[in-house]
């Protein structure tokens, strides 16, 4: 081990997250590989190691014999300080080698607040942060992940964005890079050829031309680059590589368990939800394969918990059979099976009864809005009756902790809708009084509100976000109206949501803001320990930009969005139609009732969407 590191590690919190060496890590001989990839997650080890996408792509990239892909995470503040003091550059966990010795820095960007950490990790590695300052082919800086679906805010820093699911696309790019490295291509040559790979967006080939008011007139596209870049998907998940030997962390991480992915996409079409639209079309895995994979994962890791992942577990067609199949293995071994993202319906309670036989932890539901009218407007297909019925069954079944998630500031929201949240919480409490099996144990109802952030590629991408003052007013209104002592109210601070809104629909100019924040010391901004609102405001001012332009300005129907160059499958016309439905408070049927021809099925090239 590096001598400097040996002296630092005893001084920092939880040093095991900085050492690598975990069971199932992939070690290769440097001499046997031509391409070394530093797979960078712009947040801590604990968060990154819980990310299923990282695990999958780590495995697929390492399938290439000439590639060694290693993990890199952002150090926490104490380690960061010590590394700076001792002049230790950012290093990869498997080999301990500096990231600067790698050919590729590949970033997985899941959320906007991680942007400044991406710059920081490049800097800690000694790599120039601007794409234009990296004139050689290597190191190549690439990025993917949900936040990359609006690539523009990070366009000045990243050489190549990989849009959509990376299992196949990443390896196609690495294969081309292998050839390029061996044959000595220039960076320009390589980028030109790479732009022909499906899902590859080379921001340098696209120049946004602005109108006087700061909106985008059009993109000037360099010769040979596609007008729009269509995201990539894996058509058949049953045939895709799914790692059955994931790394077992030697220290505690956020989700300390194995994850089994049921399906991708979502049939629901909630209008605020980016994930529900950008991960379409719907593709499921077969229950037989899932049982087999679940058992293998548990055997190969020794994990004592397994989670079934998807955007809406209740919508997996074979959920009941799958749970039976897994429980048969889990129960005799005291292995816990958990199932997040359940809908508030009877079926969920029946399933939960089977999963939580002895220990009844809490139940969590997300009605998202307090009134039926607003729930219809956002297309959250759950009725008050259904929710209360579910709560009744839960209370009768012995549960006494219920969490309810809502959003404030949804389009068309009135004070009546806000007060509806308090009313609904009271009705849940009333239901408990009527039906609880054992009232002596008491009840705990937690109401949480977050601030709505309009997201690209969702039907609400044109919407204005509430101002921070408006959010605070709504929070206070709700606080005054939630009085029962059994109901706890938690709310998100609107400052982070405001910044998130400026970034999520940001254009290329916002890159300067991100750079300013980073230069002023901003990293790990998703953590309240490090987030500084003032630093963001200063950064906007120094960049000569108005944050309100990005967060609060309603967009015109035909405005060219910074992310219009990205085709996620779902048509813009469909999104607009859904937006109009919202203003009429009209529901759209879910995909299983009636296909709305959203457009995502075209990505399957003839295959069938499971919606």
């Amino acid at each position: 081990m590096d001598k400097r590191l040996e002296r630092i590690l005893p001084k920092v919190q939880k040093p095991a997250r900085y050492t690598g060496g975990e069971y199932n890590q992939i070690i290769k001989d440097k001499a046997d590989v031509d391409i070394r990839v530093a797979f960078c997650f712009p947040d801590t080890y604990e968060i990154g190691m819980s990310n299923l996408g990282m695990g999958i792509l780590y495995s697929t990239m390492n399938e290439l014999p000439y590639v060694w892909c290693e993990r890199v995470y952002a150090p926490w503040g104490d380690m960061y300080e010590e590394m700076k003091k001792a002049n230790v550059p950012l290093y990869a966990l498997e080999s301990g080698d500096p990231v600067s010795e790698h050919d590729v820095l590949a970033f997985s960007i899941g959320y906007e607040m991680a942007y400044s950490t991406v710059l920081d990790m490049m800097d800690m590695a000694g790599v120039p942060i601007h794409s234009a300052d990296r004139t050689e082919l290597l190191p190549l800086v690439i990025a993917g992940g949900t936040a990359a679906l609006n690539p523009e805010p990070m366009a000045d820093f990243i050489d190549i964005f990989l849009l959509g699911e990376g299992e196949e696309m990443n390896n196609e790019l690495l294969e081309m890079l292998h050839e390029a490295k061996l044959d000595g291509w220039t960076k320009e040559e390589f980028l030109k050829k790479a732009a022909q790979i499906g899902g590859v967006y080379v921001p340098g080939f696209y120049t946004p031309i602005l109108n006087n008011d700061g909106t985008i007139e059009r993109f000037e596209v360099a010769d040979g680059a596609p007008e729009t870049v269509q995201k990539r998907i894996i058509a058949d998940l049953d045939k895709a590589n799914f790692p059955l030997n994931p790394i077992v962390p030697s220290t505690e991480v956020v989700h300390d368990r194995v994850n089994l992915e049921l399906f991708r996409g979502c049939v629901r079409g909630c209008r605020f939800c980016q994930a529900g639209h950008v991960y379409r079309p719907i593709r499921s895995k077969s229950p037989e394969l899932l049982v087999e994979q679940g058992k293998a994962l548990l055997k190969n890791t020794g994990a004592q918990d397994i989670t079934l992942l998807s955007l809406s577990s209740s919508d997996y067609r074979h959920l009941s059979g799958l749970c039976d199949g897994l429980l048969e293995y889990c129960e005799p071994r005291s292995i816990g099976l958990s199932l997040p993202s359940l809908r508030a319906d009877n079926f969920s309670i029946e399933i939960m009864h089977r999963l939580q036989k002895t220990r009844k932890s809490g139940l969590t539901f997300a009605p998202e809005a307090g009134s039926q009218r607003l729930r219809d407007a956002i297309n959250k297909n759950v009725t008050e009756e259904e929710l209360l019925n579910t709560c009744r069954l839960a209370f009768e079944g012995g549960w006494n902790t219920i969490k309810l998630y809502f959003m404030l500031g949804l389009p068309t929201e009135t004070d009546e809708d806000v007060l509806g949240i308090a009313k609904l919480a009271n009705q849940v409490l009333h239901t408990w009084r009527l039906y609880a099996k054992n009232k002596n144990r008491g009840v705990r109802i937690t109401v949480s509100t977050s601030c709505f952030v309009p997201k690209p590629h969702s039907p609400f991408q044109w919407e204005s976000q509430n101002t921070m003052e408006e959010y605070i007013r709504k929070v206070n209104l709700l606080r005054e109206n939630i009085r029962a002592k059994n109901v706890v109210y938690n709310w998100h601070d609107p400052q982070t949501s405001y910044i998130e809104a400026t970034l999520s629909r940001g254009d290329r100019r916002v890159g300067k803001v991100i750079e300013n924040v980073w230069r002023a010391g901003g990293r790990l901004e998703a953590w309240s320990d490090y987030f500084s609102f003032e630093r963001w405001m200063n950064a906007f001012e120094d960049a000569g930009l108005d944050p309100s332009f990005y967060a609060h300005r309603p967009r015109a129907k035909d405005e060219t969005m910074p992310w219009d160059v990205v085709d996620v499958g779902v048509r813009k016309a469909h999104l607009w139609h859904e937006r109009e439905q919202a203003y009429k408070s009209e529901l759209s049927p879910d995909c299983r009732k009636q296909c709305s021809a959203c457009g995502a099925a075209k990505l399957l090239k003839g295959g069938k969407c499971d919606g």
Partner: protein
Amino acid sequence: MDKLRLRFSKTGRAVYISHLDLMRTMTRAFLRAGCRLKYSEGFNPHPNISIALPLSVGCESLCEIMDFRLIEEKELDDILKSLSVQLPEGIEALEVYGAERKVKEIKWLKISGIFEYDERDAAEMTEKLNAFYSRESIVISKKSKRGVGETDIRPAIKEIGFAQEGNDVRLDAVISAQEPTLNPELIADALRQLTPETAPDFAKFRRLEIYDENMEVFR
């Protein structure tokens, strides 16, 4: 099945795995090895394993022991073999055997250490360290749960000697493992407190062997 004992070493990168994390890491390794640990009874069952003399983060050891029970009979050799391939880098299973002696019979620990000096002469330091530790009493202040207290660490040191090793100074010592427990770090801490001019820039330690009261190797 009877109580069994695993002897293992913890070196290299694994020294940063904390005691609690090590328990979880071991539990998982046993499950992967197909050795089903006996669980505690009750509302929240957990595997009944215990690792003697919790090791400080950063300290290496060649002589760790962990007691456990399995729910099914298995050949000791098979347990060792199947476990060996399931451990993370730096943890090595050395031996599995029936736990006959009680862990509380452990009394002495043989340790070694490396004291690094960036700008001072190792030969000179060696001499000074030997002189310092020939004192009969070394009273230092030590933080405990009850606040800062004074403690004499010398009686907890049975044997101690320093020798030059390249640019470093090597420590060899036999110290009290329990009642009282002497954290080897205190050997360097004492220097920092009482003779800062001889305190190393960095010190690291390694457990070599465990003994009972009569200096017989404990197994």
